[in-house]
């Protein structure tokens, strides 16, 4: 986007604020929500034709660039044929440092204030029953990790094959993509929070107010269904870093983990690391009795 266009856009925004008439212009940008007629009448992501999708992506790019004062890219990369993403987490290696939590926050433009974390690290006392999660502490503060006598289980979206959240959404604003990622169209979500009631893993988070992300900390490389800045009043969640993984990169959490506890790969590729782990290690999934079939596998290697 060049400067000239930028100036025109500024004019447009001012016009949009000034009067409703300018809202009718097809190319106008706005604050989203009620502020912009185009955003209001926008189609569901799956129903957009190529032209509308391009127009929407451009509008969002303008909107975010204006808001944060730097150039944003909003892509809508399609799933790669023949991929079904899966995650492996080695709880015998996790040291509870929460670097994954903060790498995720930065990569995915999560709100700092109020604080939203897509990854929750649960701390358990060794030797006590733990799988029912009631003895878990997610607010532990440690000067040094790992702490003696404790172990850690990070939990984020389990990307269920039979996801209870997508089943209950009244407007199909959340669904499973062909590569297995559960995504949300933030411009379609009505904010009823039924999916949050349905999720057995506490993976879904609600934007209680406008997300507070300092402009200099934003990540401008975004995906429509993933880490683009969210409006207030919608639900958000982990997308396996869709903006990275559909371009052959690892999710931010897997990349940052200093203990090598996080593994990621294609479940359909028999030679992938994730397949090796599932076949060779002692593997379990959270709340397997609920039959949600998570694609997030916990394992114990040591």
């Amino acid at each position, binding site marked *: 986007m060049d400067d000239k266009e930028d100036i025109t856009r500024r004019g447009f925004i001012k016009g949009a604020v000034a009067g409703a008439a300018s809202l009718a212009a097809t190319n106008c940008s706005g604050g989203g929500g009620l502020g912009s007629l185009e955003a209001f009448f926008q189609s569901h992501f799956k129903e957009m034709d190529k032209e509308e999708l391009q127009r929407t992506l451009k509008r969002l790019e303008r909107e975010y660039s204006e808001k944060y004062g730097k150039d944003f890219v909003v892509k809508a990369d399609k799933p790669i044929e023949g991929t079904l993403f899966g995650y492996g987490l080695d709880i015998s290696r996790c040291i509870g440092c929460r670097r994954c939590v903060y790498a995720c926050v930065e990569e995915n433009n999560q709100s700092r204030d109020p604080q939203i974390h897509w990854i929750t690290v649960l701390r358990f006392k060794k030797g006590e029953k733990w799988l029912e999660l009631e003895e878990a502490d997610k607010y532990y503060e440690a000067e040094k990790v790992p702490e003696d006598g404790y172990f850690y289980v990070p939990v984020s979206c389990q990307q269920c094959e039979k996801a209870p959240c997508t089943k209950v959404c009244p407007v199909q604003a959340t669904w499973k993509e062909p590569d297995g990622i559960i995504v949300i169209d933030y411009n379609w*979500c009505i904010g009823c929070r039924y999916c949050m*009631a349905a999720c057995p893993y506490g993976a879904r988070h609600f934007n209680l107010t406008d997300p507070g992300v300092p402009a200099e900390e934003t990540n401008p490389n975004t995906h429509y269904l993933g880490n683009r800045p969210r409006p207030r009043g919608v639900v958000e969640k982990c997308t396996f870093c869709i903006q990275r993984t559909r371009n052959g990169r690892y999710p931010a959490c897997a990349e940052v983990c200093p203990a090598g506890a996080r593994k990621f790969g294609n479940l359909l590729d028999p030679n992938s690391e994730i397949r090796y782990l599932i076949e060779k290690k002692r593997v379990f999934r959270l709340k397997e009795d609920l039959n949600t079939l998570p694609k997030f596998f916990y394992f114990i290697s040591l």
Partner: protein
Amino acid sequence: MKQKIRHFRIAAAEVVKGGKLYYAWVSFLLLMIAVGIYAYTVQARNGFIVTGIRDQVSWGFYISNFTFLVGVAAAAVLLVLPAYLYHFKPIKEIAFLGEMMAITAICMCIMFVTADLGHPERVWHMLPFIGRPNFPSSMLTWDVIVLNGYLIINAVIFFYVLYKIYAGEDYSSIFPLIILSIPWAISIHTVTAFLYNGLSARPFWNASILAPRFLASAFCSGPALMILVFQLVRKLTKTNIENAAILKLSELIAYTMGVNIFLLGCEVFKEMYTDNVHLAPLKYLYVGLHGHSNLTPWIWLATTLNVSSFFIFLSSRYMKGLTLVNIACGMTIIGVYIEKGFGLVIPGFTPDTLGEIYEYVPTRVEVMVALGIWAAGALIYTLLLKFTLPIYRGELRHNKSPD
């Protein structure tokens, strides 16, 4: 036709006519509605951060009120059944008061759900053709269908019968719709129960006894509310409501409250005796969990009120006068409001799915919005009543000049 329009105007004009008490009442309601609107603008400006709702407890006071009111709406069937199927005259004469209550309650339900949406301007996403309703998969979509259907059915019956009475014509051709309204009433509370019931993530709701419990408690609180409202109507307007109708309803609550308490007992037994991890929400509700016990006094209050009102209703047939029945009605309404309101919604989220206990407390904004919606409901009922009464009392009839 000219006369009909004139009579419609006369009936409509009734709405703005009344004594001091009437004006005071309407002004009070308007004031409460203004308070509610103000509180809602605070929420709309700042987002849900001004409510007690958080990720751990993602539904709160609004959905609690919604759930209670679906029960009130469904309970109208308890008047329709004896009135139109058994032609029990004392109730047939007042069936319209029940239909009005159903219409009002559904309107309030819609307002409560709308207040609970993060993006109310996007509700059109639920509509067929222009939106993407998740049908038949989402129970919320089902709920939207059955609730709006129930509203339409009741409104059609109500206004059709009203018009026919006014015109002095036979209204039996609406009978099929009245029959349809009976299972439909059951369906609205069943689907609302299924909304919770179908979530395996929430063991507190994931019990097959939930829908029967919903209906049983709705058939307590609904008629209890009607008994009180009917007597108010009788006292404040010149409407003839026979004691026989009121006693019939109170007798009915004796049965439904008995069933309600029995079903609760079944659930408590199953949870307590099995004593597995699913007991946690019930423990939180009744005795407190890990030192968190905000709801405990409320649920014991509710249980006490429900059980004692049961005994009063049981012995109501031996009573002279309605004082004790009225007290029991008040007890039932409060008891069920707690039990099927926040006593049902909040424990479903406490502890949350990762074992955390966040104690939800509604904020002032939520309470004010809720008060506004209750006032709006009372206003709708009042105005409907004002419009209807001259016709039901026979003062306004086609080809008859009004007195």
